[in-house]
């Protein structure tokens, strides 16, 4: 472990995944595919304790996510306590369940910001990709968000089936009055990993989407921040995932498991403590789940001797594990990794002809929607 990592700083970013229940069934969801096998959700009192303990450690950004956090009827209570403690509170939602009564209560409780997801720019594709009829409801929620004077942050996860609609998506964001738009290319974990072959765009699709985003930026006549998150499979260096595991980010899953990133539960051989049994402080500072990948003692070659290791921390541990079977390997996105061919092969496979612009692509393997039934089928 290097000197800096011996005394980790505070978990500045706390993400509470309040529930895995969700009215949407998105094919690109990063939630674990075995979510139906996890234990019962934490109680209100448990969540309030987590919020208090994390704030005492110095956490300041709070994300409330899931699943769909609005499914929890104690969301307003959690927001009120977090606000009292000085958190900046972000609600990350599909919008389903956000009516005027609840947004008024959340505003009064001190919620700072709402990030609303759309799956596409058209009712047809939005509803297909989420396997729900929610497009019109989301549009109404967007209007409520404006009405209650929240900064409007739209998040659209991009992939093979919607990335060609980027211009329409940005026009929709403009019509809705968005101030921030995140065009987040799919990252392949959970359900997205399961559906990777069907979701991976071709390189030409990515380039066209970037060009469309650039054109839109040049012509829009009002402030709108657009974040185009490049899909890492198309890069030659890995993302500095979580700024290094255990450096600033702490997730608590619905059943109380403390994780250094959303997906880390998959990493074998690590102890991820449960906040039912332990303090947030113990989880952050003393558990192997958080300490193992701090610093660089865990690194193998080519990362160990790489001059760029302090910049990208070897990339993503979960991606290394999913693709190579060893979480200590370099993220295969890096072209210095001996496993980089696994990434280039996946990208090459995406060069097959595109399906027609209809909702149900004519491909051999079906998309698997994120549903409790599919989870139970995958993990009987």
């Amino acid at each position: 472990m290097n000197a800096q990592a011996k005394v980790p700083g505070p978990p500045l970013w706390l993400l509470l995944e309040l529930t895995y229940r969700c009215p949407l069934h998105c094919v690109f969801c990063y939630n674990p595919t075995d979510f139906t096998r996890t234990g019962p959700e934490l109680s209100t009192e448990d969540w309030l304790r987590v919020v208090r303990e994390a704030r005492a450690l110095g956490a300041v950004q709070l994300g409330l996510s899931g699943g769909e956090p609005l499914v929890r009827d104690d969301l307003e209570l959690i927001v009120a306590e977090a606000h009292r403690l000085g958190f900046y509170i972000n609600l990350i939602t599909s919008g389903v369940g956000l009516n005027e009564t609840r947004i008024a209560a959340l505003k009064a409780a001190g919620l700072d910001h709402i990030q609303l997801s759309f799956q596409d720019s058209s009712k047809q594709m939005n509803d297909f990709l989420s396997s729900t009829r929610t497009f019109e409801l989301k549009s109404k929620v967007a209007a409520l968000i404006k009405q209650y004077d929240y900064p409007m942050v739209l998040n659209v996860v991009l992939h093979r089936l919607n990335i060609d609609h980027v211009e329409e998506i940005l026009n929709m964001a403009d019509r809705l009055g968005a101030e921030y738009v995140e065009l987040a290319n799919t990252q392949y974990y959970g359900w997205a990993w399961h559906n990777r072959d069907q979701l991976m765009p071709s390189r030409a699709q990515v380039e066209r989407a970037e060009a469309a985003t650039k054109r839109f930026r040049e012509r829009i006549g009002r402030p709108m921040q657009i974040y185009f998150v490049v899909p890492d499979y198309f890069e030659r260096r890995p993302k500095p995932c979580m700024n290094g595991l255990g450096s600033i980010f702490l997730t608590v899953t619905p059943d109380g498991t403390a994780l250094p990133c959303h997906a880390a539960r998959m990493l074998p051989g690590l102890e991820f403590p449960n906040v039912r049994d332990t303090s947030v402080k113990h989880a952050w500072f003393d558990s192997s789940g958080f300490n193992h990948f701090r610093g660089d003692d865990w690194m193998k070659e080519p990362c160990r001797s790489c001059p760029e290791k302090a910049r990208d921390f070897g990339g993503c541990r979960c991606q290394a594990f999913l693709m190579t079977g060893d979480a200590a390997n370099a993220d295969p996105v890096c072209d210095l990794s001996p496993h980089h061919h696994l990434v280039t092969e996946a990208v090459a496979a995406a060069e097959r002809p595109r399906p027609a612009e209809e909702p149900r692509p004519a491909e051999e393997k079906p998309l698997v929607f994120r549903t409790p039934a599919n989870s139970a089928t995958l993990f009987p």
Partner: protein
Amino acid sequence: MSADPSNDAKPINGESIPAIDRRFRLQWEAAQNAHVLLYPEGMIKLNTSAGEILKRCDGKATLADITASLEQSFGATGLSGDVFAFIAMAAEKKWITLLS
């Protein structure tokens, strides 16, 4: 973005009245021993002088007031050049809005 007229049109002088933009929240964070600006899913950690200037941007004090207050607090003189330069940068980044 340059198309936003809110700050660009206003010259910065001693009569300017800056306020923290509604899209940001300024807060002291003891754990970081610093002021921070919080915004949707992000945080900017401020150095001491940036924090001291921004915490005086209450939408009432003029830049002349703010400069005088800083000079008094830190036993210094001739800070107005640095303060104006910082305010210009903060306006460019939309951290603050100029009310006049």
